[in-house]
């Protein structure tokens, strides 16, 4: 194994371990909401496991897997990873932080959910560990930027390879996102959690959290887009539809990912409606690059399907390699993302949001987006990457072939009922949907039951994935390594150099963030606010 591959695989293992633990907690939660009396079931354990599930899947699994994709792309598309020492330092810092936060959660002293809204107060270790996870990921960002600049020095005037363009975009979005989180945790929460400061303002903290929380979703999504754009056309035997337009899409994400956070705070007091409306506009703007992605990627697939002999309006669809787990994962991820995207347009709707805010609809929504569009893409990518990294063929090809379909089916069963239950008023994140037998809650029962079945199917799929990966590295003999090849573009006209100017676009993004946040934050900090002591009701 080359040093670069060792680095990639170290991150992949942490991601998969977090995924396995988080999945086990997930199935218990789905069953609990349906009122299934599992052994050791208790409200304490339920909320503890919701916290652990959120942290381990939404933060640890995603971040480590994304760092792995970044190193892989840097190595294969640029032919270099510069600053390997920093990369490994980042890995160990992030892993230590993950273990600290996980220990804090499992000890029962930090049941604050992964959003940790003050004045809920966790053990300081919880915040310190999360901080270290983020610092580790910053070192990853530094290594990505350093590697890119090193490549740029030798290739002045050339277009950066498209996969690395996407990874640079991801790293920039992450830096913009985590600057809000860093302020929340380092300036507001840690002094308060350690007793240096007595009080904290919950709305200020929430505002910084959602400065981070929405670009976080694009930090998850963009590496998946990189795989959709740059690998999948090659896997299905086609070409990327347009290299130049893809760069434009990525740049739009740099610009619009962050100044949108108030669409998570529509129901909050203390922020006036005008600012919420402004964030509504930017939120709808960020849907545009995803709509373009839908066209470009599907056009690439259509080209490949026709090259494989597909005819007629839809004949090309059947010619695509539906038995290839990577392709199947991505295709199903895209279908799911289309559903999640339209749901997202409803969440982002200024006034209509009140119908769905904090209801079960929301957990239905993000299990379609991060829980499937991103996660299923990453799982499918594992089947593609693992043989190419280790030289070992996938050990259980039939299990790998079925697993994405199981995930998709399980997610439909889980997610659609959650959307409906949410519209019927069922809140999210509740130990039981029973509400002491009150009549209005009776309507939710069929949907919590269905979503529990979905949860079980998802768990089976998750275990198929983890089992196949383990069987591959433990039992499959080491053979020839195939190389990772990126798709060539159909249109050969190169993009203007402007779309590779990351520094410039980052500066524009910073200005947009300032416009969206400076005035409302100034107001939140300077008006007469009282603050709150910490509470740990767990």
């Amino acid at each position, binding site marked *: 194994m080359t040093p670069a591959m060792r680095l990639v695989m170290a991150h992949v293992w942490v991601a998969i371990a977090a995924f396995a633990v988080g999945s086990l907690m997930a199935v218990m939660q789905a069953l609990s909401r349906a009122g299934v009396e599992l052994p050791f079931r208790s*409200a304490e354990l339920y*909320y503890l496991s919701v916290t652990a599930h959120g942290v381990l899947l939404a933060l640890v699994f995603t971040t480590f897997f994304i760092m792995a994709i970044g190193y892989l792309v840097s190595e294969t598309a640029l032919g270099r990873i510069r600053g390997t020492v920093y990369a490994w330092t980042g890995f160990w810092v992030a892993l230590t932080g993950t273990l600290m936060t996980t220990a804090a959660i499992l000890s029962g002293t930090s049941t604050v*959910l992964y959003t940790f*809204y003050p*004045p*809920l107060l966790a053990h300081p270790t919880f915040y310190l560990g999360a901080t270290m996870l983020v610092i580790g990921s910053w070192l990853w960002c530094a290594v990505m930027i350093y590697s890119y600049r090193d490549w740029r020095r030798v290739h002045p005037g050339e277009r950066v390879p498209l996969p690395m363009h996407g990874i640079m975009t991801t790293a920039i979005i992450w830096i913009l996102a985590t600057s809000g989180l860093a302020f929340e945790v380092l300036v507001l929460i840690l002094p308060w959690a350690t007793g240096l400061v007595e009080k904290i*303002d*919950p*709305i200020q903290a929430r505002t910084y959290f959602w400065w981070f929380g929405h670009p976080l979703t694009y930090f998850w999504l963009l590496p998946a887009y990189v795989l959709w754009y740059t690998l999948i056309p090659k896997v299905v035997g086609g070409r990327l539809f*347009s290299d130049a*337009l893809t760069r434009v899409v990525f740049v739009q994400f740099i610009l619009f990912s962050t100044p949108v956070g108030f669409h998570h*705070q*529509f*129901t*909050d*007091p*203390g*922020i*006036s*409606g005008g600012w*919420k*409306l402004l964030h*509504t*506009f930017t939120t*709808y703007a960020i*849907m545009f690059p995803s*709509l*373009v992605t839908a*066209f470009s990627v599907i*056009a690439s697939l259509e080209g490949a399907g026709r090259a494989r002999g597909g005819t007629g309006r839809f004949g090309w669809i059947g010619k695509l390699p539906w038995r290839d787990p990577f392709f199947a994962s991505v295709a199903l991820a895209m279908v799911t993302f289309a559903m999640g995207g339209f749901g997202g*347009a409803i969440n982002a709707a*200024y*006034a209509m949001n*009140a119908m769905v*805010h*904090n*209801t079960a609809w929301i957990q239905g929504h993000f299990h379609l987006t991060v829980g499937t569009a991103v996660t299923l893409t990453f799982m499918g990518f594992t089947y593609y990457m693992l043989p190419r990294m280790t030289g070992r063929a996938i050990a259980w090809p039939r299990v790998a072939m079925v697993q994405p379909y199981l995930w998709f089916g399980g997610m439909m069963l889980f997610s659609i009922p959650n959307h409906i239950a949410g519209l*019927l*008023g069922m*809140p*999210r*994140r509740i*130990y039981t949907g*029973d*509400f002491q037998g*009150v009549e*209005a*809650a009776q309507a939710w029962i069929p949907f919590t039951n269905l979503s529990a079945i979905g949860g079980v199917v998802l768990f089976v799929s998750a275990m198929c994935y983890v089992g196949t990966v383990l069987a591959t590295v433990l039992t499959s003999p080491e053979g020839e390594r195939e190389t990772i090849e990126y798709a060539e573009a159909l249109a050969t006209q190169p993009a*203007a150099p*402007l*779309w590779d100017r990351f520094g410039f676009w980052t500066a524009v993004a910073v200005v947009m963030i300032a416009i969206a946040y400076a005035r409302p934050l100034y107001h939140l900090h300077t*008006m*007469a*606010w*009282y*603050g*709150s002591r910490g*509470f740990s*009701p*767990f």
Partner: protein
Amino acid sequence: MAVHIDRYERYWMWASTGILVLFLAAIVLTAAVGSAHPPSHVETIDPEQVGVHGEFASPGVSTADGRVIVSLRAEMYVFRPEVIRVPAGTPVTFRITSPDVLHGFQIVGTNVNLTVAPGYVSEATATFPRPGEYLIVCNEYCGLAHHLMQGKLIIEAPR
């Protein structure tokens, strides 16, 4: 700047832009004409005084200028008052705050859905056309008995 764009993709991009503009136009129009805004009341209050004096120390229903005002306290793990009675067909303004952590205030089956934060007063106004009964739930995690936090809203026929 120029990027070559395929003809069909151009059509698609115009259609996408059209859809997004349409969505935004619907939002702006309903906000401007129908006053469809999210709850965005800006008013602060000392959370440690909430239960001691002022309207939230004795929460309940009051009337002012033909409007019905409901002052509420959301606290672990109960809404005070637990049962609210208001007349049908009259605008009802809910004013609510918390002495402890964040809570949610969601009247199931309506579009009244508020985040309740200590230090702030949240406000929403709604009119309930017909007599009936609604479940109120807390939809923001507030501790281990979060799922037990509920209230009742009874809409009475106007006298």
